């Protein structure tokens, strides 16, 4: 990566993380970070967010046909119990 490309990328990231949209957890309301959200060709580019989030359509108390909102939420920390393992695990290379 050239020096110029790298410098521009650092600048955009710094801007996104300082003046970008505030991203909050849709369930808890906790502030996750800031990022630029850019609609582009039917998709939304998330630029500069320094967290791992899932996009979710938000529940709405009032029924509206003209607007729905997309938000973000964090996974809960992994806390899975043990699972019963088969005596002979399947061959991972088998198809």
């Amino acid at each position, binding site marked *: 990566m050239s020096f110029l490309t790298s410098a521009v990328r650092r600048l955009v990231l710094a801007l996104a993380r300082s003046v970008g949209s505030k991203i909050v957890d849709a369930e808890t309301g906790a502030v996750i970070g800031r990022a630029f959200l850019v609609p582009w060709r039917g998709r939304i580019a998330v630029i500069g*967010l320094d967290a791992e989030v899932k996009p979710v359509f938000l529940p709405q108390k009032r029924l509206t046909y003209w607007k729905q909102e997309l938000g973000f939420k964090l996974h809960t920390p*992994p806390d899975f119990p043990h699972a019963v393992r088969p005596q002979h695990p399947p061959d991972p290379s088998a198809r």
Partner: protein
Amino acid sequence: MPSVLNILLTHQPADAVMAMIEWWQKWVARDSILLAYGGSREDFAAIPHEARVFVDDARLRTRDHQRERQSYGGVFRAAAAWMQGRDFTHVHFAEYDHLPLVSDLNQRQLALLADERADVLGFHLRRVDDTNCAHYLQHAADPDFFPFWERITCRPDPRVVLSMIATGSFWTREAFDQLAATPEPHPMYVEIFPPTLAHHLGFRIRDYGPQTRFVRNFGDRVSEIENARSAGAWTLHPVKSRWG
């Protein structure tokens, strides 16, 4: 009686490796240290530490680790082969730049593993499926990725994907041996494959909790050693310039 093998992965020259082993000997028994070497064969031959394995695996020797999906599979397989016939009950895996800071490190890890009723401990353990995690998204684009987990999982949701920093993981012997015995049918990154595999094989994997703040991906924390120890750190990562 639990017995922990400390696997240290390094590629550094012989003198730096011996300085690292001297440091580690302050905290764990020398005969509990297995050196996994990813450097040159010449340097490997010059290292006067008996318990060592040379890892001849191109998937370890990547340049752009993330995009080439660096793997520690060769390290795990070599270590598991070395352990055969030896009675270690647990495995602590650390990279060369991950410093131990307390004399009862392995005992603390065993106690935490027992408290969590877990088989594996990892740093920065998180669930990343369906998120913007760049590593997850790159793997999700691979048509073989999800079918692999569907084939091997013993859990109800085969789409769960976990991630953790590669260094500092702590394993029961059974979980480690199964990790080493499961080949990657296609390249998967070292931060994705081990924790996700452990989960889908039915093992319980947990984060180190408060210790996670003393481990991060980037930088050189050589100036933070004493402060970290005072703040309660068991280990510190990354400390890249400690061995020269």
